[in-house]
């Protein structure tokens, strides 16, 4: 990784910034070996760090873990998919079969896929809950179209970083479909944390974004 300042343990920064719990994926799962990262993640066993392991759907011998049943044995409430990084077809027959069998919500970076692929995925699996991570600010129009067409899509707001972008999405789709997130420590946590405290929304809506929406998603 081209970083030399990543804290080994995120909990000190969570304490400093007043973040009670965080959904976390292990760096090894993203940057090295999905299975090894998931094993390390599931060993953490800290209620403040909600595990979001990586799932790589595939034919036998090309997946991590080897079957959907193994994922279900983890007892997790959210899994992360990286179709670009792990080179699988998000809307192909294998991934669709795995996701239907899992019945779990999925988190996917927008950079790992496309709004079109996510619309297809949502259309093929209408009950699937999809959390779009790091949607950014340059694709607000496409994100809004996706959210309008797919009511099972939530957006993480850490990178929704153009003036009043979060309020714009909340006005269109409700705060109940927006989820606080940071992407830290790879991305910034200070800015999104401050934004959360200063949203121009009703307190109940801010509470939804801070925690309630994610609770509903999970």
């Amino acid at each position, binding site marked *: 990784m*081209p*970083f030399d*300042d990543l804290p080994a343990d995120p909990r000190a920064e969570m304490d*400093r*910034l*007043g973040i009670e719990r965080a959904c976390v994926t292990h760096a090894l799962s993203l940057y090295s070996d999905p299975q090894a990262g998931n094993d390390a993640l599931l060993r953490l066993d800290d209620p403040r760090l909600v595990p979001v392991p990586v799932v790589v759907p595939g034919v036998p011998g090309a997946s991590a873990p080897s079957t959907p049943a193994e994922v279900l044995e983890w007892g997790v409430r959210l899994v992360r998919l990286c179709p670009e990084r792990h080179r699988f077809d998000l809307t192909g027959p294998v991934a669709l079969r795995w996701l239907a069998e899992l019945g779990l919500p999925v988190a996917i970076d927008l950079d790992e896929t496309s709004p079109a692929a996510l619309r297809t995925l949502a259309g093929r699996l209408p009950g699937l809950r999809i959390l779009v991570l790091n949607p*950014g*600010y*340059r*694709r*607000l*129009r496409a994100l809004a179209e996706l959210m309008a067409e797919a009511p099972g899509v939530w957006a993480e707001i850490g*990178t*929704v*970083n*153009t*003036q*009043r*972008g*979060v*309020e*714009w999405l909340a006005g269109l789709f409700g705060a109940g479909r927006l989820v606080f997130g940071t992407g*830290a*420590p790879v*991305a*910034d*946590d*200070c*800015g*999104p*944390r*401050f*934004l959360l*405290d*200063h*949203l*121009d929304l009703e307190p109940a809506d801010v509470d939804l974004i801070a925690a309630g929406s994610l609770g509903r998603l999970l």
Partner: protein
Amino acid sequence: MTTGPARGGVADAPPVLDAHGHLGTWPDFLIPDPTAEGLVATMDRIGVTAMGVSHLLAVGPDAETGNRLAREAADRFPGRFGVWQVYNPHHRTPLTRDGVWGVKLHPDVHQCPLDDPRYEPVWRLGLPVLAHGQTDSPWSDPDRFAAVAARHPDVPLLMGHCGLWPYGFDRAARLAAGHPNLYLEVCGSRMTGRWIARLVATAGAQRVVFGSDACFLDLRTGYGRVALAPLSDADRALVQGGNLARVLGPRVLGPRVSGRSVSGPDDSGHPIPGSCTRRDVP
């Protein structure tokens, strides 16, 4: 959790000065609120005293009209906006010394390297200059800032985005450390609170300047990085306003509003008569 300072304009609060702001729209993406009114409301919400702005129309195709729009917005909200007049080197945009914070250059949009002689009218003006800085760009790599800073040691030069890409932040800080008139301005979607603290450690707190890139980006996210960065109170005060106040001197509130309230537009909501005296520089 409660964060951030008191509202802008509070007498005993240290100034929070945003070095890098914009008004207007940009074709690349949707900006839900590109207005001066919206920015002032957000500034009040989080306690930003004043913001230096260039109009995105000026950064883009029409510097003269965009500069006029920025000045009109500054007049509507005395003391809240400083104007960075955009200089387009291809159009040889008329420049002024009056009623502005300085000059904004965007070498990448204008495709003219920062150390190109076509910018000479800007350096001759002698005002602070904020320029887009982007590591590995043929137009605005931090190396070009160091070259210009050495050539014009009396011109305060703000390196917008501190090189933009995280892999270039550290090099940008080391380059700035060698040039006392070169400042690191920290806006950008790739910046982090942790990196701001590292820039302070490398270049010195006196050399790091808060900027948000609002309304292009969200002011709250940009200021939050500074407000919640792991900095000492003294260093944070320098970064979030002290350094820019020192660079701007009496220009910080604009010569036309010295001694006036800085809380918003005048009672009528109209520009203050005679407040905008231009002196064009060739």
